[in-house]
């Protein structure tokens, strides 16, 4: 039996004005377990807290009920008071007789009666309370950033600058991501390489950052503060520590017909390659799918020309195991496939290109050395048609497009159109739009400049059909404002393809038990207030893996994610919320229902040996709650069919006792 003390607060006249506090204290005296009951002017004041402390000592109280303001206001205060008097702080319950009683009811008898009932409910609950201790877990002071684009780079730099070691895992041979492929960046038109490559170099030289390039995460176990991650380092057949990045091998390799993915297949590279001049790490990689030596055993040219002796044809995939305290997903995006858009003749004509291909065509390091030339015949295009929303805002067919707005297309199309007109004033540039969406700092001004200063023809309407005829592209489109159908003979058609999350995001989310939306973007813990955290503790989101974003937004989100990671890693120990779910292993039948409803992936299953009455043992599958991951929502407790799952601090029997007390 508990020994409960009841403390009724007057809160000046806030409570005492409508409630007969003396009567409440008197009535609660007779409740089961109550051994002491009193009232005081201001319970939360030092004097009030002293009354509680003294009563705990004097009456050997095992639980206290404070009838006062909302627990959202002073629950912590009274928990600390109890703890200071040596009582477990979770043996404190608050009866909210201010916000939910004295302030909303006017008549003294009515208010007093309700206050007594609320007090009884709290007493009934405390009678069933058990002391709880928050779990503690250590924090591994190392962060993992998955993805080495601008989002991952910025996050890693910010964490590393704060003094914590960071590892970046990147599937490509170099970090840099999509931004490295871009030419200029809106709205200021500084060149992407000029602002990105210094950051890449900083990452390479930072003493707190390790880069695992050409690698991927293959397994993640553990929980916030204590992740065990296995990283697969794919064999690149070049020893990273020996290669100097001189590039001799990439010039001498006889296999010249490998589509260059960095230029989106618009030119070729060798089988041994460095993706681009400023690659980090600047180390060659052998493409095993094309290397003659690896396929037939006959060649070895690169090995002969390499003065550093870095080539290693015997290399195998390696696995690195590392512990991390926090994980940041920065897996980024890709433009969607244009295969389903036959009406734009993307697969029929080389001169129908996507915007990312256009970036490479105008980039000085691209396949045409920055000259805007038609991919088909290398001629200078005179009429260029840009089509926006290709696959974005497309609700008709999930296989074809995406229902969301890709957010960046309006701006980069304006940029492309403007730059084209700037460099080649003899070109006619048409942009077909549904809406022009430019809500960003200096964004709309940028778009208007394209129209007003550079003479880009913006036409409200959509292109219905593109058909190649001779060396022209016949573009048929509607001009909704003029009420006309337009027929344009274009030399080049540029499609603003929708963007989608990288394909690696879904398996990664499964490994992380992080949730995703239907479009495979990572879900944030709260859409407004916790935008860079995953609901799964210790997992953070950076960049386009969370939703379409431009570079300024990505960088600010990357910084925000980093600050959350730093906040986590700065702690030596994580103190959990002790009000977590707990499964009674004797009742659990291992059906997996609780694990399915848990939004945090806090529930795992293990086989445990049970002793049977006849002295045999039996293996049974049971649910185990990871207290460091559980946030205590209690969803599993209701889903549990065998009634094994309960929530500490809000146990079934406690809530039922409250119901009983109220319904008496």
């Amino acid at each position, binding site marked *: 039996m508990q020994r409960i003390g009841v403390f009724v607060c007057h809160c000046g006249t806030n409570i005492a004005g409508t409630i007969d506090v003396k009567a409440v204290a008197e009535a609660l005296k007779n409740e089961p377990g109550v051994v002491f009951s009193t009232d005081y002017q201001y319970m939360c004041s030092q004097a009030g807290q002293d009354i509680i402390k003294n009563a705990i000592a004097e009456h050997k109280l095992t639980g206290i009920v404070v009838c006062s303001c909302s627990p959202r206001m002073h629950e912590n205060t009274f928990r600390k008071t109890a703890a200071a008097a040596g009582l477990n702080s979770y043996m404190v319950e608050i009866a909210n007789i201010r916000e939910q009683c004295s302030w909303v009811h006017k008549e003294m008898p009515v208010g007093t009666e309700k206050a007594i009932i609320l007090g009884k409910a709290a007493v009934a609950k405390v009678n069933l309370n058990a002391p709880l201790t928050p779990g503690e877990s250590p924090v591994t002071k190392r962060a993992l950033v998955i993805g080495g684009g601008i989002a991952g780079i910025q996050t890693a730099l910010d964490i590393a600058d704060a003094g914590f070691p960071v590892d970046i895992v990147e599937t490509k041979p170099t970090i840099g991501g999509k931004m490295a492929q871009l030419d200029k960046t809106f709205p200021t038109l500084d060149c992407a390489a000029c602002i990105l490559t210094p950051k890449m170099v900083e990452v390479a030289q930072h003493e707190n950052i390790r880069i695992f390039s050409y690698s991927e995460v293959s397994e993640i176990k553990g929980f916030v503060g204590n992740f065990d991650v296995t990283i697969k380092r794919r064999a690149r057949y070049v020893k990273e520590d020996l290669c100097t990045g001189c590039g001799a091998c990439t010039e001498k390799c006889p296999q010249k017909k490998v589509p260059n993915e960095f230029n989106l297949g618009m030119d070729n590279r060798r089988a041994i390659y460095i993706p681009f001049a400023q690659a980090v790490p600047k180390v060659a990689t052998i493409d095993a799918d094309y290397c003659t030596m690896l396929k037939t055993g006959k060649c070895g040219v690169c090995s002969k020309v390499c003065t550093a002796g870095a080539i290693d044809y015997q290399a195998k995939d390696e696995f690195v195991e590392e512990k991390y305290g926090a994980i940041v997903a920065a897996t980024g995006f890709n433009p969607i496939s244009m295969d389903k858009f036959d009406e734009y003749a993307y697969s029929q004509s080389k001169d129908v290109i996507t915007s990312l291909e256009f970036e490479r065509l105008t980039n000085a390091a691209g396949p045409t050395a920055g000259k805007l030339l038609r991919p088909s015949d290398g001629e200078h295009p005179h009429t260029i048609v840009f089509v926006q929303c290709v696959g974005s805002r497309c609700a008709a067919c999930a296989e074809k497009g995406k229902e969301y707005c890709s957010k960046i297309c309006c701006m980069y199309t304006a940029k492309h159109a403007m730059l084209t007109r700037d460099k080649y004033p003899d070109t006619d540039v048409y942009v077909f739009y549904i809406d022009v969406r430019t809500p960003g700092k200096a964004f709309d001004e940028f778009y208007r400049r394209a129209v007003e200063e550079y003479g880009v023809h913006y036409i409200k309407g959509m292109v219905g059909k593109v058909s190649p005829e001779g060396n022209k592209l016949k573009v048929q489109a509607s001009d909704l404002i003029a009420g006309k159908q337009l027929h344009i003979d274009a030399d080049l058609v540029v499609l603003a393809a929708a963007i989608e999350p990288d394909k690696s995001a879904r398996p990664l989310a499964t490994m992380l038990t992080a949730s995703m939306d239907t479009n495979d973007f990572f879900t944030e813990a709260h859409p407004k207030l916790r935008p860079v955290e995953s609901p799964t503790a210790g997992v953070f989101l950076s960049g386009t893996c969370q939703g379409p974003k431009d570079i300024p937004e990505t960088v600010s989100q990357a910084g925000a994610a980093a600050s959350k990671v730093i906040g986590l890693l700065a702690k030596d120990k994580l103190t959990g919320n002790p009000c977590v779910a707990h499964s009674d292993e004797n009742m659990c039948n291992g059906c997996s229902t609780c694990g399915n409803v848990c939004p945090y992936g806090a529930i795992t299953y293990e086989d445990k040996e049970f002793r049977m009455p006849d002295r045999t043992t039996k293996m049974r599958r049971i649910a185990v709650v990871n207290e460091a991951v559980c946030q205590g929502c209690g969803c599993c407790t209701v889903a549990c069919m065998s009634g094994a799952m309960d929530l500490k601090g809000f146990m079934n029997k406690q809530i039922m006792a409250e119901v009983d007390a*109220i319904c008496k």
Partner: protein
Amino acid sequence: MQVNGEFKPLIVAFCCNWCSYAGADLAGNNRLNYPAEVKIIRVPCSCRVNPMFILRAFQRGADGVILCGCHPGDCHYTSGNYYTRRRMALLFSMLDYLGIEKERTRVEWVSAAEGAKFAATMNDFVEKVTALGENKRLEDLRCKK
């Protein structure tokens, strides 16, 4: 129960800690009156409310039970209120079948900013339940003292 010949319903309200309980507090802060028949039980999330609790309340003589949670999409625990919505749709239709009128049970989304909505909801709910009168269908007379 009858008070001076006038029927006063007994209402149990389950409020989630993050939105609705705070909404109820806000109603208090703004001194928005609602009937004292409403007694609030705090739960971490609306999805913590086991149908058992509701049945228990009716068994012990409650005349109406209302569940308040965060608005869909705003759940502190991401998805809890979606489970609540489904579970309660099922439970309430079963209760309706048992003769507990649909007006005696309700799920309402009240955010922490909607003190006025909380008070209005409670006023409306109490009015509807009062009109229905005493709930005798599920009350277990053995529980009466």
